[in-house]
């Protein structure tokens, strides 16, 4: 059987359902080239890459909202060609002279097409003007060092002056250890910026995406006026392994998920990726921001 007819057969079998998601064992038997497939890191089911892209990288089996690059997130969120980047040349120094840190940054800058783990700027979302921050876990697990802290702080200071809302898509492994104590101080710095921003009476929406942990959970990501989480993503303070080692027992699957966060009262809502733009636009409207015309 040729590859094309094989794909047809598989798709035919699932055509009345959601895009086909295949049990990993079944997928192995089907002998489909691996580069056509994408495996969900949460449920291990396999889907066709093409379908995975079409579903905005949401698993059609378990609804896990997979990680996005900043470009993918921006494209899904902002109105076309509306994004203007802030601080596009800001680059970290090496405060504790950590071996190979500058080289590592250099490589990542090229690979991720960004200067550090967050892109900030302003854009329109369904016509509403907003300051936006997008963290990208491909860049050193989007850990927060000097650049991330400074860019977030400036974004809030700018938005306070311009009377604009701020939306941050958080994703992070926490503080950037390679910058030592300087990275810890970024938690306080962003917290201070948000305190000032609150005095300016503007709206901060924190969107929790996969994974949000450590010093970012313990700073700006938890300080939104409204906290939205994408379904099935990981959110927590301490690492799962650290806790498991302390208590010496296995943790339940739903521990530290978006759903768990909601149940425990630390998120306002879950929002599917396909509804995110309308959800954000709706909240901006309710907070009396007006659409830019033309």
């Amino acid at each position, binding site marked *: 059987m040729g590859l094309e007819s094989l794909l047809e057969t598989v798709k035919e079998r699932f055509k009345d359902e959601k895009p086909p998601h295949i049990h990993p064992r079944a997928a192995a038997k089907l002998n489909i080239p691996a580069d056509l497939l994408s495996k969900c890191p949460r449920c291990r089911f396999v889907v066709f890459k093409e379908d995975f892209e079409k579903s905005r990288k949401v698993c059609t089996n378990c609804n896990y909202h997979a990680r996005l690059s900043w470009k993918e997130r921006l494209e899904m969120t902002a109105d076309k060609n509306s994004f203007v980047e802030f601080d596009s040349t800001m680059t*970290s120094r090496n405060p504790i002279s950590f071996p190979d840190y500058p080289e590592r940054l250099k490589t990542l800058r090229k690979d991720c097409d960004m200067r550090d783990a967050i892109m900030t700027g302003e854009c329109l979302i369904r016509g509403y003007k907003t300051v936006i921050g997008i963290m990208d876990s491909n860049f050193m697990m989007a850990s927060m060092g000097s650049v991330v802290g400074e860019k977030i702080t400036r974004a809030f200071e700018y938005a306070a002056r311009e009377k604009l809302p701020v939306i941050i898509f958080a994703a992070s492994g926490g503080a950037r250890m390679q910058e030592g104590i300087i990275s810890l*101080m970024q938690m306080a*710095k962003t*917290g*201070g910026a948000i305190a000032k921003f609150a005095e300016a009476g503007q709206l901060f929406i924190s969107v929790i995406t996969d994974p949000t942990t450590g010093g970012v959970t313990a700073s700006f990501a938890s300080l939104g006026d409204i906290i939205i989480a994408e379904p099935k993503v990981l959110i927590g*303070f301490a690492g799962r392994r650290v806790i498991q080692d*302390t208590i010496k027992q296995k943790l339940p699957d739903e521990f530290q998920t978006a759903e768990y966060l909601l149940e*425990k009262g630390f998120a306002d809502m879950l929002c599917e990726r396909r509804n995110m733009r309308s959800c954000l636009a709706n909240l901006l409207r309710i907070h009396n921001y007006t659409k830019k015309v033309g």
Partner: protein
Amino acid sequence: MSKLTATERLALVRLKNRPTVNDYIPLIFNRFTELHGDRYYGDDPAILAGVATFHSIPVTVIAQVKGRDIEENKRTNFAMPHPEGYRKALRLAKQAEKFRRPVICLVDTPGAFCGIEAEERGQGEAIARNLMEFMSLKTPIISIILGEGGSGGALALAVCDELAVLENALYSVISPRGFASILWKDPTREKEAAELLKITSEDMLRFGVAEKIIAEPAGGAHNDCRLTADNIAEYLIEAVRRLSALDTETLLANRYEKFRKIGEFTE
């Protein structure tokens, strides 16, 4: 001033007889009166808080409690607070703001507790809220690191107008052991990590993270607890008077700027 290595200091601050807040508080403050509870969930013995007078000035004291023996450590969870500890700290800081009395935070923790209950009660949220609220608290805040300043769990009591660090105390984004096991997959390289991370009081002064190093007696604070307490008190009275003389607007602007300027980047 001694020139101990970071590794030597790490061993020193973990000594069983290193003085704790329970030694210092009676030597520094008068009329200390403990106040309990966060008013939402419970009372966390890892954080001891209350009101006192200091040279006749009313103050609020918030302190992390290392145990002096295994029994006390069991009770205080080895000074690793749960969310309700941080919420108690915030409640009493707000109370201090109401009565316009300075807040003095004594920091000594390996870190915020990592466990199921801490997660489900919002450890991240509790720390985050303290960072934001302490930044705009309308009364002077002075924090002193006595031994271990472990990451976000220490920072939650160290958003302040001035940070002082005992000579041999340490302040770090992650424990050297944690650092070694995450980055090098080898926790036994703890000593190497301790040196690399730049976590001593001199480092803190150099980075602009701390404003003051408080001297310890030769060999460390445990060799003369009273002298160490006197050194702390001597610094504190000067700082309390100086910061209390500032108008609130200046105080808050300076506090914001203290953290605002920390970051090392080019553009």
